């Protein structure tokens, strides 16, 4: 059976990570920024799973489960804070967060 080589997974994961990182920087919508962060986390997850399968070890799988749990907790807290921000200023645009500047 032909399998996809490890490199492909790692390159895909690097691309996903880059897309996520650019998304956080470029996007002005807070919700989209959160989605971009999730893409970054999933890029790391993909790398972990690929390595884990390649090395025939289970540690990576366990790591991914915990990362997913953490990501869910983070998203829950994050969206709650976004709602609080929206209630305070009727906007989820990152440019509206300009109360404090140096």
């Amino acid at each position, binding site marked *: 059976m032909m399998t996809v080589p490890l490199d492909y997974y790692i390159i895909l994961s690097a691309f996903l*990570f880059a897309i996520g990182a650019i998304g956080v920087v470029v996007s002005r919508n807070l919700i989209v920024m959160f989605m971009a962060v999730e893409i970054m986390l999933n890029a790391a*997850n993909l*790398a972990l799973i690929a390595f884990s399968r390649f*090395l025939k070890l289970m540690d990576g799988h366990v790591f991914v489960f915990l990362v997913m749990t953490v990501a869910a907790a983070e998203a829950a807290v994050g969206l709650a804070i976004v709602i609080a921000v929206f209630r305070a200023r009727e906007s989820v645009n990152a440019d509206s967060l300009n109360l404090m500047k140096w």
Partner: protein
Amino acid sequence: MVNLTPLLPELFLFCWALVVLASDLFSKRRSASLPGYLSLAGLVITGFLLIPAHDAYLWGGMFVSDPFAVFFKIIFLGAAFMAIGSSFGLAGRMTHHRGEYFTLILFSTVGMMFLASAKELITLYVGLELTTIPLYVLAAYTKSSRASTEAGLKYMIIGAVSSAVLLYGLSIIYGLTGTTFLQQITINLSIYWLSYGELGPAFSIALMAILAGLAFKLALVPFHMWAPDVYEGSPTPVTAFLSVGSKAAGLAAIVRIFVGAFIAFATPVMAPRDWGSTLAVLAAITMIVGNIVAIRQTNIKRMLAYSSIAQAGYIMVGVVAASNLGVSAISFYVFSYMFANMGAFAIVAIIAERTGSEQIADLAGFSKSSPVLAGLMAIFILSLAGIPPLAGFLAKYYVFAAAVQAGYTWLVVLALLTSVIAYYYYANVIRMMYLSADPNPHHIVPSFPAGLVLALAGIGVILFGLMPEPILKLAIAAASSFVF
């Protein structure tokens, strides 16, 4: 059956946090004192539970209780104690969710304690997240305040991005070494190095990703942009907890990973695969930017934010040294920094609560209206600046000595020059309090818990400056947890 004794302090504090939560639920009294005093008691009991701790490990070394972990746990407990002690005023004014506030601080402390004990990447990552997720909520705790929600959101996004970057670095390290245990990572990396004579660019990328991820948590320049905003917007006791507890937690992670696992790559001999010279540059720009930007701040929380960025730079000087002396020096540094910084923020919280102002200019004449508070503030500020009889001076001295010993003389010279700059803005606060002719209308008497915090911080700063031996002994023992 696994013997969970090494985990006892964490388990106890976690259960106690739930008790605190329940206590607020079932008590009919509308005051902050019940959950607050319960939390303080829980932290003290956890501290006692730490005393019999000796070298022990759980689950094949995932969780260790070595002197380094115990030392940092004492710092976390101390920071949480002082943060909660100075929160009574804030919590008293809350109409809702008073118990949750204290519970979240305790949860975050449990996360920090896990982090300090982690000797394995999964535990370390989860510990870091357990630390920061409650802090996101705490930063945004005053929901009605635009500044607080803004601070919470900024902290949240930066924190999520930095942990994603950190995780990406960890995943590459896992791929290279095939293990998540720090000790095994060291061994596998050396085997890799000996068999191939080269680690390839992947290792450099992983090193930089981990460094960047943790530098965000520690607010090192250029990863510091979030810190002043978050520190200014958050409720003041939370800011204090962020600036000490969360910073010490990030530092514990950096020391565990870089000094614990990547010690072989500390020196520039290993260039370009070394982290020592990169971290030295980060430390240098952190000290320069932190101290210079602090000068022009008018808001005292923002000034202290930049000051704590600069302090993180000084701490990094000790990490760069990557030696026995270096680790014991930074342990002592964080210990003394905890007292001084928590004390300073506690006073800011007391003043802001009474006068509603966080401006440095509004401290004018403070020495006449509230001489004791002004004196304490002066002591904390002088300790942060590193003036001789106080703990902050000895801490700086040891860190700089460690760096000189490791051959980073240029960094120490720079650190000394920037501490001279720091005298300017630190002295500015004291000048405002003592030399300004304006009368200050507010005679401020702190509440009992806040007074307790101030007394503790004041005693800590003075006592450990005059006789640092007991803490130094513990700090030296902490450094013995690492192999150099």
